[in-house]
């Protein structure tokens, strides 16, 4: 819908890393038996991605699939496609115990861009960012809110949090990326 807006409408900040809100992103929570063929098939169908293993995020032609817990995936697709994807996946999984819900608007997404993107997140998250590589997904917290992050490439971290705390997350990331705050170099 044309009047849909993301929480911060693409706000950005140029620090020693660039922090930007990614705008509207389609996100779907899929809960089910991850080992089942049905789930793998549904994931493949709607994202083109293979089933992610523990701690992984996979990429396909239409989106990504991230491992959130032993019975939960996060599917990332175009925002506009999300309702249709929910419909398709639900239909595909009608025969088994599963739950597919659109959470696109319950989330805010940020990109932290720059060689030090791991360092910026490491100021806020207790997880070991230095071991993170593209293809891995980590759920943890930043300061006082839950967050998940993964790397699109070695210099682009994507961070997901709840929409209601988007401003807080953005302010935290800005503070962490402020020039003068470089830890190494």
């Amino acid at each position, binding site marked *: 819908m044309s009047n849909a807006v993301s929480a911060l409408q693409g706000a950005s900040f140029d620090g020693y890393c660039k922090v930007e809100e990614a705008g509207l992103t389609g996100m779907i929570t899929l809960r089910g038996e991850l080992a089942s063929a049905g789930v793998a098939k549904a994931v493949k169908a709607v994202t083109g991605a293979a089933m992610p293993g523990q701690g992984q995020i996979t990429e396909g032609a239409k989106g990504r699939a991230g491992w959130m817990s032993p*019975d939960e995936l996060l599917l990332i697709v175009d925002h506009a496609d999300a309702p249709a994807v929910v419909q398709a996946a639900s239909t595909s999984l009608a025969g088994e115990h599963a739950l597919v*819900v659109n959470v696109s608007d319950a989330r805010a997404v940020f990109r932290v861009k720059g060689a030090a993107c791991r360092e910026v997140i490491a100021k806020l998250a207790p997880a070991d960012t230095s071991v993170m590589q593209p293809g891995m997904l980590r759920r943890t917290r930043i300061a006082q809110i839950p967050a998940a992050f993964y790397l699109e490439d070695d210099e682009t971290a994507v961070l997901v949090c709840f929409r209601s705390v988007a401003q807080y997350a953005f302010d935290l990331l800005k503070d962490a990326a402020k020039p003068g705050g470089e830890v190494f170099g």
Partner: protein
Amino acid sequence: MSTRLAQGGRLIDRSKPKNFTFNGKRMKGYEGDTLAAALLGENQMLVGRSFKYHRPRGIVASGAEEPNALVNMGQGGRFEPNQRVTTTELFDGLTCTSQNHWPSLEFDVGVVNNYAARFLPAGFYYKTFMAPAAAWKHVFEPIVRQSAGLGKVPTEADVDRYEHFYYHTDVVVIGGGVAGLAAALAAGRSGAKVLVMEQTHHWGGRAPVDGGEIDGQSVEDWIAATLAELEGMENVTLRTRMMGSGVYDHGYVLGYERVADHTPGDGRPRHRLWRIRTKQIVTATGAIERPLSFAGNDIPGVMLASAVRDYVVNWGVSIGDRTVVVTNNDDAYRTALALKEAGLEVPVILDARDEATGPLAEAARDAGIRVEPGRAIAKVNGGKRVTGVSICLQAGEGAALEEIPCDAVAMSGGWSPVVHLWSHCGGKLIWDEAQAHFRPDPDRAPTGHDGEAFVVTAGAASGAMSLADTLENAYEAGKTAAKAAGGKAVRKAGPKAEAEEAQPMAPVWIMPQGAGPQKRMKMWLDYQNDVKVSDVQLAAREGYESVEHTKRYTTLGMATDQGKLSNINGLAVLSDALGQPIPATGTTTFRPPYTPISFGAIAGEARHEIFQPIRRTPMHQWHEEAGAYMEPVGHWRRPYCYAKPGETNEQAVHREVLNTRERLGLLDASTLGKLIVKGPDAGKFMDMMYTNMMSTLAVGKCRYGLMCTENGFLSDDGVVARIDEDTWLCHTTSGGADRIHAWMEEWLQTEWWDWKVYVANVTEQFAQVAVVGPNARKLLEKLGGMNVSKETLPFMQWADGKIGDFDARVYRISFSGELSYEIAVPASQGRAFWDTLLEAGEELGVMPYGTECLHIMRAEKGFIMIGDETDGTVIPQDLGLNWAISKKKEDFLGKRAQLRSHMTDPARWKLVGLETLDGSVLPDGAYAVGEGDNVHGQRNMIGRVTSTYYSPTLKKGIAMGLIKHGPDRMGEVVDFPTVDGSNTVIKARICDPVFYDKDGEKQNV
């Protein structure tokens, strides 16, 4: 006098002078100076006053152990009290002032305490100031408070920023002296990930001051070469200006990095607190020299021998022209030699040992220094500065043999390993007789999550006191830690130094050995807190025998240096007084931080706007722009009311109520929790979670439900909608969404894990707006879309469809008693939807309303509010909600609890309405009283107000409350005493809690 020598100073750059002021006096130092070195270079030995007696205090040490030299530093938003000058780097424009005196450092009135010192022994305040009873609070305490306290109070908020940094590594090496570097070398060579931190801004620690050779190079060259090798290792990270502040369980280390203390205002964070997780820790924290206890050992000019040497060698500063050295060990001879080499006079070395042999003593004699074994200081002469010493036999009682004029005394009572970080997390110590110190017991190291040791000590911190032993011990420590952290075996040999011959030290705890009470009252143990040998002995005599008792009774070691200089000497004196060996006395507990760390650093980024998260709904910005008064609800901020210009909040609330009841109101209800519960066993699960029967709710319908804890108390409520055959949507309270979601998951995961149910929290996916009032339907019909008529969408049903252009789910539910639709749209469109409703509703008299209006309307209807009618002690039965408790169900959470005797007691306070006889509003929180007093002599209370408001609709005060036997006492009048000082009692009649539209006709139109 102390002065800057013409030459020397390995750490300073004389081409870069730095200007600073002390007590307004302009002074000069050099880049590389500590503030202490710079002050001494300007002959500023006197820097403060002691805590209790206000005695003059000079600089005693050269590092973190300094107890005396604390100053007020900076100005305005960068003012900071109690800054230790020995660990403060000099920078251009630094300003500082001395502390704890009035009117001036030189002439301090507080020094009267010094003259009365004899009447102020340890613990004197426990024995007096007791009469009359009120005198402590009103007379004595204010005097004590004003005279204590050291630094000045800052007056402005901090202008600097701080941050945290999480770091994960295999090995942390704390301390960048030669031991730390040797350990880092071993760990680095193993391939393990290593972080090395050094609290000062230079590497190598004190070894270059002491001299010697490592692997055939000078110590200085070895340090440079080693740093080069470490810097070349990708797996090794080196940080200076970072102190190992504390070691915590499971390999957690705090690193306190003083990023910009020496470059204030350069835009960098002032401090960065590293929160490190590591597999292994090497503490290469060195050792601290102990003072000796002789009469007058606190007079400015008496300094640790190692510090005297540091100032000469590192900063080219001499403490005095004539320095008497007094010692019980070899190391102080190095100071004598260093002074001699710098062209300064050393009139005598007083060695408490019976003889002075060995290479260092020989070297001193060769250098022409008089060496006197078996001698001690009987007394130091001087007031604000040393003028001389009387010397005596160590074995005697202090009869003066000779007076020696001097302007400095360099003392050494032996060395104690810095065991703080080892001990923080439970590492144990053993007493080393030969060195007369406690050192870490490697067999009783702190253990980590796997039960294995995770701290290793290196070098002097292990008790290895010579260069050769230090290097060997430290390299081994590095290897051990690396191996335990999963590194490769290291075959390459470690650095080596020649073993030196040394004469054993002799434990000397007081000087001279037979000093009488008068002398012991002049022997300081704790310089800052003014604790003397006589005080510790007094404590022992009075039965404060535990080391913790003595510490607390005398305040020994409780000053800002936390006893780094005084603890071991104090323990020894106490042990002697108790006639027991030192290990039997033991030590006090070492607690973090190693040296004080700023609150700013601990708070990190959590300041101002990001102190805590604020949760915002999609319409949040609109509310703020509309000037709403926002109230915190959990982390949310919700509009309390929208006051117009000239309107009070109360007036605004009343307007909102009337407008909603008469026309049309909009409430941002997005914060209400929304949980999806789905699965073949979802009905069974819902029946356990709610007191009501939810499994029978028809698809398309809504039902109000209650949730209780297993302890029976009401915890949340909300409307449940049946979405399809195996899906329910549960609304929770605003504060309850995350809590109830977690609650559901907990039961599903830990009790009924074989039930097929999934839960998802979709609270934030939707913006939800309550469209309320007689014009509600008109507004929706004006926008077009789905059919919202009474027939198609009756009360307590829901439907999906379109409202205008918006995809919406519409619930026909009412918390106000009016015709009401709660409409959920995707959050991304929430603001647009809100704007649309306002615009279209204008002609229908639409106004937004806030939480207070919501509360009043629900109270008028007698609806309970979680948190008002409930407080964690209220069960649904108390609130007359029995109709919402299924009697058919065998079990639900809380059911068993509600069967306990106190829960079924008919005397429980129960919900009723209350109306005052005069129409006034009952005060919030008022209690109703019955006849007489209870067993405690308290007034008998028979109930209390839970919600109370002025009802703009009914034009009078209305309230709900819990009253003993309340529902059986309809029409009776009860008394509510006020607490506003008027001593009045408000009388209120018990009535039905539903004040408005008792038959519910308005909501069902």
